[in-house]
């Protein structure tokens, strides 16, 4: 009975929220702006909320212990499956361009960029436990470093890539110094501010960055000096291999570049975790006082985490600049930081595979959903679905939020919450995250 009342209440809240937001659309016509009502869409959403809430309550009320057990079994299965998921994902990533579809390769490139950013941020947030809400700043520093170096000094992508990484790393250390003594919420706020400062500086330092107009004509990367241009002459990829020049060649090349960069990020973070430095980061996340009492130089440890995390953000930024060939401060808003952080948190802090899966779901999943809905709309000739499909980007944040809430209810420690020890002599004993949280096994 309480479940029913609760479900009604949730439905009422949903009606209040979605009634004006979804139920009314403005339509512009020759005679001005009109309001059009969409009662069916509202009814669908409110119905979903009602039955969703009802189902959730009855499912949970059924048997708490059983639900926990089911959840644990799922966690075990996903941990065991992890061994097979990784090579399958890697093979799929390598094989993706052979699909020949420009759309998929572009989408893959986008997803990989976020995976790389997620892995970079994972070093700072997941390993060292420093909550960074301004990660996009380093992405921006990398992008602008490459764009400015390339357009001003006529340097190539491969020369600028390490420079962009180093500059972003320096920015990371610069941010690190003032926040050394901060923790938790305070740290988050300062990093958030830092991210905004970088964006506002880029926006207003017109003489250097061209302000809101951005930088155009950023050169594309080359493959050992071979350009990917459409003329097909000497010194171009197509000319060298006697191929018909096509844009898809460059798109695929860019895809493999970001795949390589992302794998490099993964490899470096995995290596670091097995080294004293990585272990010191994790120890720092666990207990700063204990670290001090063991003689760890807390300052340097934190600064290296910020620096190395930022460096990978810088690499990704340089790649972003070369892919887009145009950058402006608009690309580096807080929402990017939030997306990357959401990917890291959803994936399970510190888990490499989890981050990759979360990025695929968060970035690729949304695209897939849009495709699916417009497909449904075409098939059924219904305006409702295609309407939702075309508006889906507007609901991005709503879906993000919903996904986060659902995740935090079902798997509060992220998709892949198991943590493999950096060193072990025997086979690791998997212990449920919930029990660890309670401090018992």
């Amino acid at each position, binding site marked *: 009975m309480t479940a029913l009342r609760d479900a009604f209440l949730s439905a009422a809240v949903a009606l209040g929220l979605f009634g004006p937001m979804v139920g009314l659309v403005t339509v512009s016509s020759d005679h001005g702006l009109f309001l059009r009502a969409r009662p069916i869409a509202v009814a669908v959403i409110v119905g979903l909320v009602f039955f969703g809430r009802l189902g959730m309550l009855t499912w949970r009320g059924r048997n708490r212990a059983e639900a926990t057990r089911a959840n644990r079994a799922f966690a075990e299965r996903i941990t065991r499956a992890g061994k097979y998921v990784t090579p399958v994902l890697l093979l799929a990533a390598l094989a993706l361009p052979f699909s020949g579809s420009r759309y998929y390769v572009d989408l893959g490139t986008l997803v990989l960029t976020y995976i790389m950013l997620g892995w970079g941020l994972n070093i700072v947030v997941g390993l060292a436990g420093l909550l960074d809400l301004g990660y996009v700043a380093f992405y921006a520093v990398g992008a602008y470093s490459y764009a400015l170096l390339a357009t001003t000094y006529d340097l190539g992508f491969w020369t600028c890539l390490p420079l962009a990484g180093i500059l972003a790393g320096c920015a990371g250390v610069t941010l690190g110094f003032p926040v050394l003594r901060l923790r938790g919420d305070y740290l988050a706020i300062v990093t958030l501010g830092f991210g905004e400062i970088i964006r506002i500086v880029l926006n207003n330092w017109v003489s250097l960055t061209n302000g809101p107009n951005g930088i155009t004509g950023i050169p594309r990367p080359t493959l050992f000096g071979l350009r990917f241009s459409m003329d097909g002459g000497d010194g171009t990829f197509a000319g060298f291999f006697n191929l018909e020049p096509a844009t898809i060649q460059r798109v695929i090349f860019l895809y493999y570049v970001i795949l390589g960069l992302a794998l490099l990020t993964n490899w470096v973070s995995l290596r670091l975790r097995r080294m*004293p430095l990585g*272990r*010191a980061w*994790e*120890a720092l996340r*666990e*207990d700063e*006082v*204990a*670290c*001090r*009492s*063991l*003689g*760890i*130089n*807390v300052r340097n440890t934190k600064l290296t985490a910020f620096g190395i995390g930022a460096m990978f953000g810088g690499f990704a930024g340089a790649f972003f600049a070369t892919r887009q060939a145009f950058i402006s401060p608009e690309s580096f808003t807080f929402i990017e930081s939030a997306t990357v952080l959401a990917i890291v948190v959803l994936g399970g802090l510190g888990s490499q595979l989890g981050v990759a899966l979360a990025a695929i779901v968060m970035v690729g999943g949304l695209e897939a959903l849009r495709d699916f809905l417009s497909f449904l709309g075409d098939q059924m000739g219904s305006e409702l679905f295609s309407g939702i499909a075309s508006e889906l980007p507007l609901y991005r944040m709503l879906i993000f939020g919903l996904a986060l809430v659902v995740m935090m209810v079902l798997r509060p420690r992220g998709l892949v919450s198991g*943590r493999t*020890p*950096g*060193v*072990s*002599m*025997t*086979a*690791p*004993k998997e*212990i449920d995250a919930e*029990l*660890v949280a309670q*401090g*018992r*096994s």
Partner: protein
Amino acid sequence: MTALLSLSGVTAFYGAIQALRGIDLTVEQGEIVTLIGANGAGKSTLMMTICGNPRARSGQILHQGQDITQWPTYEIMRRGIAQAPEGRRIFGRMTVRENLLMGAEVAGRTDIDVLLQQVFALFPRLQERLSQRGGTLSGGEQQMLAIGRALMSRPTLLLLDEPSLGLAPLVVRQIFGAIRELNRTTGLTVLLVEQNAYQALRLANRGYVLVNGSITMAGTGADLLARPEIRAAYLEGGGHA
């Protein structure tokens, strides 16, 4: 011969609040020295001040004749001083082995296996739990891990802050037994902070009593145990655990 550790006139502050008021204390090579006192007397502050966190505002801390008063914490810890901090503070999500390695890496030790074997000889339980997460250990095991972690740097001076905190009497006896054993076989010098005055004074060669940031009494363990004012202040009411 110079003392292993000597403090003279050490004061320390938390902001405007003075926590230590001119502490004079020496620890000789091979001794077990205990520091007893009530809550808030400044025992843990004294431990932390030796480690340079907070830094002593005045006075002098000498380690093997070297003035370490103004050294940064990590430099002090690399001189062969190790601390098992109050509340154990093990790394909960890291395995027992990783916890132990954290103790050794900072001191730049490479003979990890030898060091591990020594810790296992002292606390066999840790070997059984090697690949288990620190946070899943029992309180007593966590304390063993904290001490084992400190020992991994093979220190010349071990600072132990309230190892008996929140542990059952039997486990406390086990841990104190291990400390005595360690001192006897390897000659390790120990500075022990305790509220469990009876056990601590029985274990220690010498003891200091700290009241409101000043040392009010000093003497051998047996001597302090025999004093009526100590009995009245720290031992009445079930101190004989």
